[in-house]
């Protein structure tokens, strides 16, 4: 585990000068703002005065009453409370939008329009605005008004159907928020392109991102194979053997798991060598992928027996020695003990303000050689920066701010 609060590279942050308003909740659209914030954008998190973003209550509680997910994923953001449903709140919001580059939202379709804060209104306020709109099903189409959560999006997008033992119950594909993060990534990619277009032409636009589409887009040749041959891919269990054998998860003598994937004959030859069974890769046995595919049960059985006869460490050392693609199925305890995670500083421990807790969070990905991202603060307290933002951005006086408070607009 790496220690020490992250060093800052403020002067080198590549998105310095970009202002982002995040009125979204939980992970999908907010994660886009998190990414932009890591690389220097000034991210203003606007939250409802009554409880704020639901992410504050999602996951393991911190001593401060919010959660570890909040502290980690709202990194670098400043929090301001505002009730967009009050007329005063809506006016303040529009004044802020006039001074903003990017807006991230993920209300259900039609919500902002109902508050008279839809794209048509906001583009009048700021024609250069880039607006990311994330929903479960997108801004158009027959399902657009349905409530959309990542689990439903995983199911709709086709990935849940594929995870699990053949004919067994489909399982969660590793993480219930996978689709949220992936949509944050696609959304951020769209925002950066739209900013580029805006810089060149002065013209803003909105990005319509749907959770289910982010998932479906990453299903490789699932659609073409059905379209051309009518092949319906089914759940694959722990091995994906449509094209390559062995290619899956195998348990070791000490009750742990390894992943081995031999996509080519050369890689299988290396595995056979690691197993001290070079005969397995001979032309008359299993040297060719076609032979292994035809005898996948036998081949998998041989590999399973071999893995079961050794500890995880022994299996992996033998695989690494012959350059066979193999690795551990790490749990988080394994990850904390791993040299590669340490060497790459994939985690950093940061003292959370007001909690007395040290929070270990993942560091920014990707790694830029000249202008790296950074974590400058953890998730803020609700409304921690309300007055600071109103003064700095809108030049408001104490009296004006007090008036907004009286009217419960902030």
């Amino acid at each position, binding site marked *: 585990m790496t220690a020490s609060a992250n060093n800052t590279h403020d002067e080198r942050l590549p998105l310095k000068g970009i202002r982002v308003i995040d009125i979204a909740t939980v992970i999908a659209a907010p994660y886009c703002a998190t990414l932009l914030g890591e690389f220097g954008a000034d991210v203003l998190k606007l939250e409802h005065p009554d409880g704020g973003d639901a992410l504050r209550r999602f996951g393991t509680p911190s001593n401060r009453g919010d959660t570890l997910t909040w502290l980690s994923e709202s990194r670098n953001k400043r929090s301001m409370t505002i009730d967009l449903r009050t007329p005063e709140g809506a006016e303040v919001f529009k004044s802020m939008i006039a001074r903003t580059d990017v807006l991230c939202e993920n209300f259900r379709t039609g919500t902002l329009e109902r508050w008279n804060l839809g794209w048509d209104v906001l583009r009048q306020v700021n024609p250069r605005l880039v607006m990311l709109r994330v929903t479960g099903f997108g801004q158009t189409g027959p399902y657009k008004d349905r*409530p959309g959560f990542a689990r439903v999006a995983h199911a709709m997008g086709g990935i849940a159907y594929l995870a699990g033992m053949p004919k067994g119950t489909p399982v969660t594909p590793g993480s219930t928020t996978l689709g949220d993060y992936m949509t944050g990534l696609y959304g951020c990619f769209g925002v950066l392109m739209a900013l580029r277009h805006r810089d060149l032409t002065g013209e803003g636009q909105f990005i319509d991102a*749907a959770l289910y589409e982010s998932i479906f887009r990453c299903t490789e040749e699932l659609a073409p194979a059905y*379209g*051309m041959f009518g092949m319906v891919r089914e759940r694959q269990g722990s091995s994906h053997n449509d094209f390559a054998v062995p290619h899956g*998860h195998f348990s070791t003598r000490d009750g742990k798991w390894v992943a081995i994937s031999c996509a080519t004959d050369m890689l299988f030859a290396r595995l056979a060598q690691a197993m001290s069974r070079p005969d397995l890769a001979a032309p008359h046995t299993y040297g060719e992928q076609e032979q292994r595919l035809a005898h996948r049960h036998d081949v998998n059985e041989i590999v399973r027996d071999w893995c079961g006869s050794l500890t995880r460490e022994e299996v992996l050392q033998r695989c690494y020695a012959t350059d066979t693609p193999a690795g551990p199925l790490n749990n988080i305890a394994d990850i904390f003990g791993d040299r590669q995670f340490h060497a790459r500083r994939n985690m950093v421990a940061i003292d959370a303000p007001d909690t007395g807790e040290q929070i270990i969070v993942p560091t920014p990905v990707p790694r830029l*050689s000249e202008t790296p991202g950074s974590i400058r603060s953890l998730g803020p307290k609700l409304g921690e920066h309300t007055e600071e933002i109103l003064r700095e951005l809108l030049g408001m006086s104490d009296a004006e701010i007090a008036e907004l408070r009286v009217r419960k607009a902030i």
Partner: protein
Amino acid sequence: MSATATNSGSTDSGSARPLDGVRVIDVGNFLAGPYAGTIMAEFGAEVIKIEHPQGGDPMRRFGTTTARPDATLKWLSESRNKKSVTCDLRQPEGVALLLKLVAKSDILIENFRPEAMESWGLGWDVLRAANPRLVMLRVTGYGQTGPYRRRAGFAHIAQAFGGLNYLAGFPGETPVLPGTVPLGDYVASLFGAIGTLIALRHAEQTGRGQIVDVGIYEAIFRILEEIAAAYGLHGVVREREGSGSFVACPHGHFRTRDDRWIAIACTTDKMFERLAAAMERPELASAELYGDQRKRLAARETVDAIVIDWVASLDRKEILDRCLAMEVPAGKVNSIADIFEDEHFLARSNLSVLQAEGLGEVVVPGVVPRLSKTPGRITHLGPTLGDATVTVLTELLKLNAAEIAALREQRII
């Protein structure tokens, strides 16, 4: 199988695209890294794929085969919009050719093992000398640094290493694949594309390029919520959740009477109240029973059993109609056959139909995300090997026919 949307992601096929004028050289193989080039190409970048003259990218032969020996369906779909130029980087003349291309480009994508490029004389110092504004995206299993950097790293291995595969499956049982094998390739490429666009912006403002370094494992690790924080603080090791979730109940996959599956996600008490109403069992959401998430989590087996029984008593369509009438977050667990029938996929043009040379129609996923003014589009599917070699060498590098013939003669291209 029902009809699908026609043509590409955008109907406005002549509109400006945000990456028009950006040139990308892609020397990678398979998906991790090259997919960043694919999505940039959808939005207007000119992506020149450099392939070995003998056989090219192995992805041409990986996946479901077609009548064309140079193109699997995976290749056709995921090399969309790219141009193919053959060039042998293991020969000095090939290296010289690549450097000339790099000098005229904005971005270079590669995913060889660390130090492979260096061993061919294509290290960062050389590339930067050829083009100081170059942005270089390097994607590998474990990243460019650290003790494991030279290990063979495929998506499957890197996902397992990053902590995702351990979490898929039933508690205490075999960990399964998290749905799609190259998920890590896609996720790493998305991070890579974001880093590349940020670095491109910086290069255009300052004239200085840089390296974007992505390990597939860390791209996966980055999106696992609070798993690190919870272990660090409380020693909690997250385990497999089966089809459910530790933080909410009911939240999972349920089998219907007609032997199909649906997903239900009652993240909040309000959602459960709606489900109880859909089940015509409003009392379930009362304060004495299961109205509170903590009570549901404490009695999750009982609550899940009630939902399992209810879902199993009706066909999928009926269950979904009832859930959706009450606005319960629920949906089909779609197979690809379901997806092809789905009116929403159709309405959003998520399935694009393109012509592939010699194969007829191929259905591929449309462009994501959707930009209102400058949408992406699919202009063509994965190219034949070397389809743009002569064009690029002639038009971009101003080589004449004799020079190109000489390169062919020496098997450089």
